[in-house]
């Protein structure tokens, strides 16, 4: 028997109770200790980037919003900000403020959901149930505000679709009051519960240097002490007028990822209150031409999971020439096989959940090589492959 086949491999995925979306991880274990790890993605590639090229600028907003079910608003926002930059218009201040409010509400719902999922991976079902119950408060707010629980569809190119009236403002503030109290309680749990701390403290520790090397983004990077937040580094929407406080923690283990995300919740509550108290008056939309001027641009925003990057190229018609999306999970995923090695098998789901993965958002076409005959594709070959593929003759 060769050495290779003697290895004991625990496969996680594509279908596995720990994964809510398809991905494949192979962990080589020695007893309970993980000695090797590999990731294979691409099970949920949907070809959205290509699909944008056959839709007009407005239709694409709805399509791109559906890249992610959790951070739908932020995708549409990144796209709208990019297109507005190309068109040379900017949304009125009140629209920008409403965009920021919805973005922060979305961050709250995403982080509360993550808290529950991470607790579930650690077998702490009670925290899972309670945090998801409280998240419902926020889902109701989003529904009252936008009419939808998931794809809020708040944006228009050049503005937003709805205003926030006094009633809705009160609804939001009441919900935030309740959530703030609950969040403080959760902070207390994740930092003092002895059993839970045994599963989070000192597990999957990422140093700041390692985080830089792996290119981590978002709360995952901030938990390792890397000061990186697009809302602060390159303010967009209303973040220039309503500055965000950077949340940092420099231990880098799972516990600090909990602390950073819960502190971000508290920061979001503060920010929403501040924006609602000083809401600029004025129009909700600006006029945007149907055809967008020729040119290309990038648009960066801070999604709940980290930096979301859009590249948009226009050829002057009513459809985009090319749209390229890079979601934060793409940047963070590389940390899982690296951090997993040397850890206990039982901690792997926690380490995976620690980056708050969102598989189908980051999935792209994957070419699988059996064995070691990996080769490098040139740009020309890749381009030709793409052209042939879409003509239906790969």
């Amino acid at each position, binding site marked *: 028997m060769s050495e290779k086949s003697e290895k004991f491999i*625990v496969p996680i995925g594509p279908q596995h109770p720990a994964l809510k979306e398809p991905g494949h991880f192979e962990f080589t274990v020695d007893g309970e200790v993980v000695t090797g790890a590999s990731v294979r993605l691409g099970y949920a590639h949907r070809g959205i980037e290509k699909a944008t090229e056959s839709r007009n600028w407005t239709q694409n907003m709805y399509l791109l919003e559906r890249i992610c079910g959790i951070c739908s608003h932020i995708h549409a926002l990144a796209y709208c900000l990019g297109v507005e930059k190309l068109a040379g218009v900017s949304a009125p201040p009140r629209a920008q403020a409403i965009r920021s409010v919805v973005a922060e509400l979305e961050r709250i719902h995403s982080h509360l959901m993550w808290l529950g999922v991470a*607790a579930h991976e*650690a077998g702490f079902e009670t925290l899972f149930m309670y945090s998801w119950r409280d998240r419902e408060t926020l889902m109701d707010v989003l529904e009252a505000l936008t009419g939808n629980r998931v794809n809020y569809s708040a944006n228009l190119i050049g503005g937003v679709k709805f205003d926030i009236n006094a009633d809705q403002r009160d609804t939001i503030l009441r919900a935030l009051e309740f959530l703030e109290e609950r969040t403080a309680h959760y902070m207390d749990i994740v930092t003092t519960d002895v059993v839970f701390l045994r599963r989070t403290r000192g597990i999957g520790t990422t140093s700041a240097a390692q985080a830089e090397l792996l290119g981590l983004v978002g709360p995952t990077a901030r938990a390792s002490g890397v000061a990186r937040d697009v809302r602060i580094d390159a303010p967009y929407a209303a973040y220039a007028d309503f500055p965000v406080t950077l949340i940092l923690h420099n231990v880098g283990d799972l516990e600090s990822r909990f602390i950073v995300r819960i502190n971000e919740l508290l920061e979001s509550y503060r920010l929403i209150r501040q924006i609602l108290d000083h809401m600029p008056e004025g129009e909700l939309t600006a006029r945007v031409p149907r055809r967008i001027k020729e040119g290309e641009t990038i648009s960066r925003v801070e999604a709940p999971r980290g930096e979301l990057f859009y590249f948009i190229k226009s050829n002057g018609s009513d459809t985009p020439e090319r749209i390229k999306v890079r979601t934060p999970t793409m940047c963070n995923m590389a940390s899982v096989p690296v951090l997993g090695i040397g850890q206990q098998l039982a901690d792997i789901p926690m380490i995976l959940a620690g980056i708050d993965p969102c598989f189908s958002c980051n999935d792209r076409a994957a070419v699988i090589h059996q064995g070691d005959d990996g080769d490098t594709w040139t740009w020309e070959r890749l381009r030709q492959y793409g052209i042939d593929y879409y003509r239906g003759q790969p």
Partner: protein
Amino acid sequence: MRELFAILFFPGGLFLLAGGMMYEWADHKLIARLQNRVGPRWFQPLADTVKLLAKEEVIPSGISTFLFIALPIAALAGALTSALYVPLGGLAPTYSFHGDLIVALYMLSLLTLCTGLAGSNTTDSFSLVGATRTLTQLFSYEAPFLVALLGPALAAGSWQISEVNTYAQSHWLLFLQPIGFIVALIGLLGKLEMPPFDSPEAETEIVAGAMTEYSGRGLALFHLGRKVELMVGLTLVASFYLGGLGNPIEFVVKTLALLLGLSVLQSLMARLRIDQIVGLWWRYGALLVLAQWLVLMLIGGFTS
């Protein structure tokens, strides 16, 4: 005739299975309410069992078919047999002899042992990891749990369950041997593989652990064994530590009180890793219960 009735209907057989299902439902319902959920309806465990029994049993290739079929039967038989020696329903045990405490406890362990063997009898990595964890956990809680139950036996001066039960009715050992009670309670959680000791079947890590390859009838039998074990374990700990079980009302009240304690513990904690479980039992559980045992022996030695 009397024996046949005892084995098939009461206290063995049907009564035990029905009782096990009710206790499991009570456990699920209590946890659900503690977690702010609605929880299952009262016939859910029965419905689950009937559904599983009606389903096709898939026997994987490349394994011992005999063991695959025999292990669930042995597991359930062990759990059912152990019930004959405990004061179920607050009545006197069906069978009783000196040292039946040890027999009952090892009959209960048979279930865990069979689970471990069933997991080892596959080529599936989840099952193998689950089996290793099941057996590792068995070796960590078994000795402290046994010693915790021997505490009351030592105080009563007999290793016969019915005599310990009679002795306990005049001595609330919960207050006389608090450490033993806590170890027995947590040992019961470990024995039943309930959170935080559910690492052997941690679904987010190894799907269903040793049970991953089981479906249909085999899985139903293992689950039935677990239900029976829950009822027997509760009876045993309640009769030893909660002032004995003299009549059916005492039985229901005391076992349900104990179950409430178990449910609270289950919903309070996150899952422990297997290395943490072993550390917890041998570093704290075993030492504490041994210390208490030593004290009991000394007191016994001085007073006699």
